[in-house]
């Protein structure tokens, strides 16, 4: 729709309904993420942003609806095909989710060892390179517990990029980071999009990030239990509906001039 940017559709979500048992979290989600987009999923706490991400990467099954990648139905794919499709994804989890029994180099090397026939020395070289990209050169032999939360997150990003993915998913990248680190992470995300040409899907409610990085976005409304706005956040702030404008302006439009809506 409004996100008719440069490219072809990469991720398409059709009629998605998410539910836990009989409790419907969100219904009738329809949106398209184009190649090269930085697509932000935003919404208040507990609205199901992270659950939407889990659906997109196949950790939860939709109650109804489908998810398509590059014209291929991910939801209906058989497990083997799904595993192949998963290899084109990179996921940065909220707390990094590094495997705590392995060093950083081993964390990044694991997917490389699984899916490429590189020799161990080459794998280590690639791992060092990825760590250098996120500013962690020299930390190859550290265990996740030996580094700070912000560094864990960056190492998680290095692991997500290990296989040069086509789509990168970020679950609340700035959660638990100080303003400077989180803005550095935003810069890194933009840099990655520019240099790798990856499509990026970010779940966040951090306004500064949203305006800094998003080329398109979807707003999940916790009251309406569905999406109520779709498009670039700056546009939504100008012409979106009442609830998305309140969200994007920290409740600002709820003040006196809300009557003009």
């Amino acid at each position, binding site marked *: 729709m409004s996100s008719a940017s440069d490219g072809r559709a990469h991720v398409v979500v059709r009629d998605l309904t998410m539910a836990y048992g009989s409790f419907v979290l969100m219904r009738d989600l329809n949106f398209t993420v184009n190649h090269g987009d930085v697509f932000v999923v935003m919404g208040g706490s507990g609205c199901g942003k992270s659950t939407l991400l889990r659906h997109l990467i196949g*950790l939860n099954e939709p109650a109804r609806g489908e998810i398509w990648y590059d014209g291929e139905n991910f939801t209906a794919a058989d497990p083997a095909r799904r595993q192949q499709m*998963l290899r084109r994804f990179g*996921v940065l989890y*909220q707390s990094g989710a*590094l495997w705590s*029994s392995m060093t950083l180099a081993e964390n990044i090397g694991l997917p490389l060892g699984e899916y490429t026939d590189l020799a161990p020395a080459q794998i280590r070289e690639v791992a060092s390179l990825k760590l250098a990209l996120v500013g962690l050169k020299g930390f190859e032999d550290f265990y996740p517990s030996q580094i700070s939360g912000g560094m864990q997150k960056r190492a998680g990003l290095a692991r997500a990029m290990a296989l040069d993915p086509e789509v990168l998913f970020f679950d609340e990248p700035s959660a638990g980071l100080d303003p400077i680190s989180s803005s550095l992470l935003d810069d890194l995300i933009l840099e990655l999009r520019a240099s790798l040409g990856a499509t990026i899907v970010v779940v966040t409610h951090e306004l500064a990030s949203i305006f800094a990085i998003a080329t398109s976005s979807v707003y999940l409304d916790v009251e309406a239990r569905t999406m109520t706005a779709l498009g670039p956040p700056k546009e939504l702030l100008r012409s979106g509906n009442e609830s998305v404008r309140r969200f994007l302006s920290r409740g600002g439009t709820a003040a006196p001039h809300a009557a003009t809506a």
Partner: protein
Amino acid sequence: MTADAGSPTLSFSRDGDATLVAHLSGRWHLQRDMPSAAAVERELAATPPTRLTFDTAALGAWDSSLLTFAGDVTELCARRHVTVERDGLPTGAQRLLALAEAVPERQGARQGVTIPPWLGRIGLSVLAARAPVRAMLGFIGEITLALGRLARRRARFRVADLLLLIQQAGADALGIITLISFLVGLILAFVGAVQLEQFGAAIYVANLVGIAMVREMGAMMTGIVMAGRTGAAYAAQLGTMKVTQEVDALTTMGISPLDFLVLPRMIALCLMMPLLCVYSDVIGIVGGATVGVGMLKLPLRVYYDQTLAAVTVKDLAGGIFKASVYGVLIAVAGCLRGMQCGNSSSAVGDAATSAVVTGVVFIVSACGIFAVVFYVLGI
């Protein structure tokens, strides 16, 4: 007058017929024996006024106790159609009360507890019992598939992980196995000696200890120790990995958590349990010999020969077989509970507890089944 020091008191006066004035004085801090809204209720019931005001001239310091009191009184008066004027309360308290009443109670947020009748409860618990059974069968099915992949050399895990797990489930367990097995052998010999000595058959303590350890107790005690030690550790490790999303990270990398995490743990336990069992047998017999030589004054050589004559290879093989099966059961219980773990730190604790309980139940049930089967087969 005793402004700040006095205990909280509540008294009433009338301002004409229509107005009730509540005088609050002293320090209103949360503690026992605070004046309650019940006193106001009695006062309201005695002669119903139309208006209630507060007088806090003598009120000292106050905290939430004043707010809950004022809130209760407001509710009470609303029911009895008495207007409450809060002007007399301190300004801070007025503002906090206004804040608390700003957002109306969300409908349905307060969870009402409805308890179905007892017959219904029985039905519900029977229905609820099906889910864990189905989950367990599903898990066993998935493990079987993973073993199939292992046999075709398609399962993927790190050899370094396996070696570490083998060390943890093997060498690291020797201390506790030594202690428990030695004591079990000692106790068996002790109980047996008291009885057998009455018949002058003290030498048969060697048979008793040897056969009991090798056939049953070695495998059983190893199993129970390992369920408490390693089964619980597996559940806690896997449960924590679920909480920190490490398991999700494996899945989205296209690596099966079952292959990567569960298989090496199962293999480690299945390899180590028979070895630990043989070790436990030997230590148990040494424990028995300690009593035989030390208390019954049997020569060590005689005790040794008697044990050798009593214990057959068939007994030993049976014990080792049992230990291997217990190893599988402990690993299944630990990994199952770990992978089922919920999303909080208390869930990890529950998973570890449940892994030990499940493991011990499995072992004891299997032990009973083996006893019958071995008896029927004449082993």
